[in-house]
């Protein structure tokens, strides 16, 4: 069965510092990978997705993620965070060929401090 593990439940960081939010997955088949952001009291917004091709994926708001098949990881990074990046970040996977449900991690709360 598929599963997603976000290794850090909370990540505090100072403004303009780099950040990495870690995501590992397990699956017996190929998957598509996603990162979503959820601002307080809002729905989920797609940050970026990996479908195929280059393993380095660039998304919105200066975020990027790298797919590492051998380590089954899809870590999210940003070289310099802003206060406005404070939010909950979710990693999700979907089985290739199965346009059905997303499997979600439990989320990582990013707190950017001045």
């Amino acid at each position, binding site marked *: 069965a598929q599963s997603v593990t976000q290794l850090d439940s909370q990540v505090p960081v100072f403004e303009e510092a780099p950040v990495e939010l870690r995501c590992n997955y397990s699956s017996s088949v190929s998957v*598509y990978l*996603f990162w*979503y952001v959820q601002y307080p*009291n*809002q*729905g*989920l*917004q*797609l940050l970026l*997705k990996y*479908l195929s091709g280059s393993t380095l994926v660039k998304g919105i708001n200066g975020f990027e993620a790298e797919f590492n098949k051998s380590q089954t990881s899809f870590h999210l990074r940003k070289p310099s965070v802003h206060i406005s990046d404070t939010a909950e970040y*979710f990693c999700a996977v*979907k089985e290739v060929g199965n*346009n*059905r*449900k*997303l*499997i*979600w*991690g*439990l*989320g990582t709360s990013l707190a950017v401090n001045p």
Partner: protein
Amino acid sequence: DAGVTQSPTHLIKTRGQQVTLRCSPKSGHDTVSWYQQALGQGPQFIFQYYEEEERQRGNFPDRFSGHQFPNYSSELNVNALLLGDSALYLCASSLVRSRANYGYTFGSGTRLTVV
């Protein structure tokens, strides 16, 4: 181009009551998925509708049911509400045949509180 619209935004119900949540998908999308997100948790898949039929279901009891209309909009119904049903209910739409759109578009959700 309107995104996913959910209504109402907030709702308070009493235990044992029934509730209906509504979702209008993004223009051009034909598939609607519903998720439950409890406080401090990731979203949990409830079910997905395509061509007015439930195509896949998560681990939710039969108290949770849904419907999709010919215009692709959808409803989520929950009967015999329990306190544990209190959560943010998210609707996500997608286009089933679009490889480029394998990421869903989410609405802002309906916050359901059961008292």
